[in-house]
């Protein structure tokens, strides 16, 4: 198996692509492969990872051109002719190699963000959205318009709007729901089917009907 990794470090004028020859089992995850390269072949290779089971959102990367949560992506499902190319997510500033700065997503969270949803009277649940940033990377608007609030943040705002009947002004502004081009790449690439695109459309409809207040 050949793992090709886009490398970039602070101070470099251009990125480069490193090729690593590794033994791989088709059933293991792309993340396992990247981690093994960092442990055995190149300890300076940097990438983000934590839970290794698809709940924390740290390990989003572009794998053979497609955004994936690498811990739940099997090598055998994505390798093409024995090659896997991994690159950092688009739409964010690259920090080092595969690590990107997700501030543009997390800094848009209001202080009273609801992290839990109530799915039944007695049951609370963290949102399915794992906050991986894949929807930003997949979104043609987020990648070309830095002020855009972004798919996942707007999807969270939709849930708040339904629950409380109001949204903060930026959500209803040009940098909010009105910038979406309805490409639906966010929903297409979302690893947990959170459907940000559909939620943005529904929030637009609520706003047009005057069903939610802008505060």
């Amino acid at each position, binding site marked *: 198996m050949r793992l090709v990794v886009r490398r970039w*470090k*602070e*101070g470099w004028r251009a990125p480069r692509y490193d090729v690593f020859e590794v033994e791989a089992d088709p059933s293991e*995850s792309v993340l396992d492969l990247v981690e093994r390269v*960092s*442990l055995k072949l190149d*300890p*300076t290779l*940097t*990438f*983000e*990872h*934590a*839970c*290794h*089971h*698809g*709940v*924390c*959102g*740290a390990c989003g990367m572009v794998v053979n051109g497609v955004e994936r949560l690498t*811990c*739940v992506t099997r090598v055998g499902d994505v390798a093409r002719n024995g090659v896997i190319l991994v690159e950092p997510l688009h739409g964010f500033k690259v*920090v*080092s190699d595969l*690590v990107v*700065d*997700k*501030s543009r*997503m*997390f*800094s848009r*969270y209001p*202080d009273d*963000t*609801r*992290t*839990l949803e109530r*799915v039944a009277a*007695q*049951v*609370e*649940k*963290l*949102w*399915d959205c*794992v906050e991986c940033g894949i929807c930003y990377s997949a979104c043609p608007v987020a990648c070309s318009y830095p002020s855009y609030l972004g798919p996942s943040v707007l999807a969270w705002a939709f849930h708040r709007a339904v629950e409380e009947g109001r949204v903060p002004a930026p959500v209803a502004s040009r940098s909010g729901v009105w910038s979406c081009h309805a490409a639906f790449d966010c929903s297409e690439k979302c690893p*947990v089917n959170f459907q940000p695109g559909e939620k943005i459309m529904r929030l637009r409809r609520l706003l047009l009907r005057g069903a939610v207040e802008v505060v």
Partner: protein
Amino acid sequence: MRRVVVIGGGVTGAAIAYDLSLRGFRVTLLERGSAGSGTSGRTHGLLHSGCRYVADVEVARECYSENQILRRIAPYLFEKNGGLFVAITEDDLRYKEFFLEKCEEAGIPVREVSREEALRLEPNLNPQLKAAVVVPDGTFDPLKVILSFLASAKKYGADIRLYNEVRGFRVGGGEVKAVKVLDKVSLREYELEADFFVNATGAWANKVASLAGLHVPVKPSPGVMVALDGRIGNMVFNRLNKPGDGDIIVHHRGTSVIGTTSWVVSDPDEVTAPKEHVELLLRRGAEMAPIVSRMRVKAVYVSSRPLIGQAAQTGREISRSFAIIDHSSEGVSNFFSIIGGKFITARLMAEKMGDVVCEHAGVTAPSRTAELPLVPYWHFYG
């Protein structure tokens, strides 16, 4: 201002950086990878009620008390849906009296419910279950807890340096003078001086300490976990028996995780999941919840617990509690290692570690991490 270098960006290091920053130390945290990229990130995500450890009442009490503190300082991080201990076999049933007695002794509020009630609460449990007890368990996304501790540390001035790997130490005159670091973001090597060094690298503690010629009696004890492609319940499913392989199913977000197994290795960087462990977990999981056998496996992963090494043969018999190692007996007076513990006792471990550093530094400020609300994880960015 006294300077402390904390090594390790798992939950323990993050909590220590927070505790010491609050007490007025100038803290730099060094982590070779991303936040939580070692053991802590890969936990199954159980906010322990303590019931799993009732055989040792002290450990159980400690877990329950930390469970309550975490709910108070960061309610937004936890799915607080409780848990169930269920008896499937006659052997499980024989454990029930002992279990209830010990829960009471540990002060953990539990409630036995009927079979019908248990199945109403969690329809995917094995309908043949013979007894069920409701306990105050919860679940979490490990990374978000770690990032919240890091965000809190940052708020009080800590300098969090991810992708900064410790390569060695400069030791002299009975002290560690400086740590040698490789910054993987800029590919620059540098030295960092400090008054105190805290080694919070868990399963890697001996590897790191040996760079200063010191020894930590840690036994890296990996456990395999299997994540299912779907969520089969809300309350944590525990097997009502002594802790063993495949006796727990933890649900969070859109997944359920079956845990775990236990063995001992010498190097936590050389661990893979044995296939037979995966089969065992799926089989044992299906005993508690038959639906498991019809689910697709989404991920298999391994996490190495930093157990305290003793004469024990296998991972499970080693103490679950934590230990702070003051390396002055090895001739170094300002270097401490912390091993053992559980994810959810990290705040307490940090408090005790903070007490030790304060005592050496002559600082009297008490720990405040149990009272102050934790800063939400999104503040770590930007």
